[in-house]
């Protein structure tokens, strides 16, 4: 007889044998199905420290679970599984397995800062979510997210020249994430713009694409930032016990 409340059990917690005979007795299927417990049996006390050490995570320990962040969250409105309050808690107590169930949601924060605005304890949930996403990437639980690719592309351009150019960002991002540049909606946008864009403007934008806008005498700033980034990268890895 099948389990009536099956939707209340996670599939990975069920052990079933399609065909099984023990001591000459056929106990296939539900006759030998076992359920694994969902009880959390320990705290992982390293996890909070690890996330606190990553950029944005430093105030995670302040959270007292009032849920103001989740209540105001833009993305939570679209997807109730996107729950900063809950994730912060999981990270604090080290419920690693649980947090990883949502690993592909963590990066979807749109940085609207509503949570940071609402938080009575200045936890900066937005930063903590970024730190958690970074944690999941550095630990190898997730691939580099589109959002992180975008951040990297963006930052690299700034570090290199002191400024960004939007066309170059778009091209660089699509290249990094292996997407075609000729996306229908972008084509349509360009088309509409071209309809009424004066030729002069077109030329200017094309020039900007060729000759990257840059801040003069940027070299020393670039070197200083790059040095800091190497330091930071090493610190992140150290905090996570990675080599």
């Amino acid at each position: 007889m099948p389990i009536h409340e099956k939707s209340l059990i996670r599939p990975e917690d069920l052990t079933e044998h399609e065909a099984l005979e023990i001591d000459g007795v056929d106990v296939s299927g539900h006759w030998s199905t076992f359920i694994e417990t969902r009880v959390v049996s320990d705290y992982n006390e390293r996890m909070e420290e690890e996330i606190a050490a990553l950029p944005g995570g430093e105030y995670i320990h302040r959270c007292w679970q009032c849920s103001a962040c989740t209540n105001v969250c833009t993305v939570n409105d679209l997807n109730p599984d996107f729950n900063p309050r809950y994730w912060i808690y999981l990270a604090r107590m080290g419920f690693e397995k649980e947090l990883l169930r949502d690993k592909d949601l963590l990066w979807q924060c749109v940085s609207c800062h509503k949570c940071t605005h609402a938080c009575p304890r200045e936890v900066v949930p937005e930063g903590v979510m970024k730190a958690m996403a970074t944690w999941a990437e550095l630990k190898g639980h997730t691939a580099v997210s589109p959002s992180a690719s975008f951040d990297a592309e963006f930052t690299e351009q700034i570090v290199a020249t002191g400024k960004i150019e939007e066309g170059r960002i778009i091209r660089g991002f699509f290249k990094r994430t292996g997407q075609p540049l000729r996306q229908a909606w972008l084509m349509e946008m360009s088309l509409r713009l071209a309809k009424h864009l004066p030729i002069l403007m077109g030329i200017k934008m094309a020039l900007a694409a060729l000759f990257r806008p840059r801040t003069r005498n940027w070299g020393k700033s670039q070197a200083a930032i790059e040095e800091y980034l190497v330091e930071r990268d090493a610190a992140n890895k150290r905090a996570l016990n990675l080599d």
Partner: protein
Amino acid sequence: MTTSAPSNAKANATVIADPVSADAPVDREELEQIFDDISSHPRYDHELNGCLNCGICTATCPSAHYYDYSPREIVQLLWTENLEGIHDAMQEKIWACAQCYTCAARCPFGNSPGGLVMVMREVAIKHGMESAKEVLRPFSRVMLKVMSTGNQLAPNMITPDHFPDWGPNISKVEAPLNILRKAIPMPTLHTLETAWAVNLKTSIELYTIWEDSGVLDQLETMDENLFDVVVDIMDEKREDYEDWLEEQDDDDDDDDDD
């Protein structure tokens, strides 16, 4: 979304639909009737006083070990009169409860979440809910047994066919069941069809209780076939008993003749 987009037609105000499930919406009236039946149940006020949301009930709940089931949630749904949530819980969650009543032994407010689950199960049956029917289906064998004899379980029900998962050693001595039963040193247990020998009159008294307490009506709502079978068996037993009574009268008459 923060405000509903105009293209989304507003749901009919009298119908509550779960935005993420494809299940048919339930009438508000039906939801209210269900809650009314729960909250007016004679057990209800005994079992629910308030709630501190402390979680001790779920902490100690065996079902919560395996199911995404939480007595605390059940209590909260009832205490906050969350009609949709109550209806939803009655589809699946209330059947996860193992009825051990550890929750009741622990609750600092003196609630009995397990008792509330029983109330909800009774009401699920009253409303002929599909969930209740589904749960009852595999239970019908023991149900028939208890309703028609007064014993929940009979020795001949425990067979390898029905309990392969209990292994090859249901009995460790090879002998026919009736012999093994007779080797029990209690005369009342020399039975196969019932756990102990039940007096015919006793079964009939129990049947009267089923009739007069509304249990038979419950059964009829849930499983008409089973209901018919039970009624047939009991009618027959009543006849047998009447016959026997008449015989007794005759015997008495005979005695008088002596």
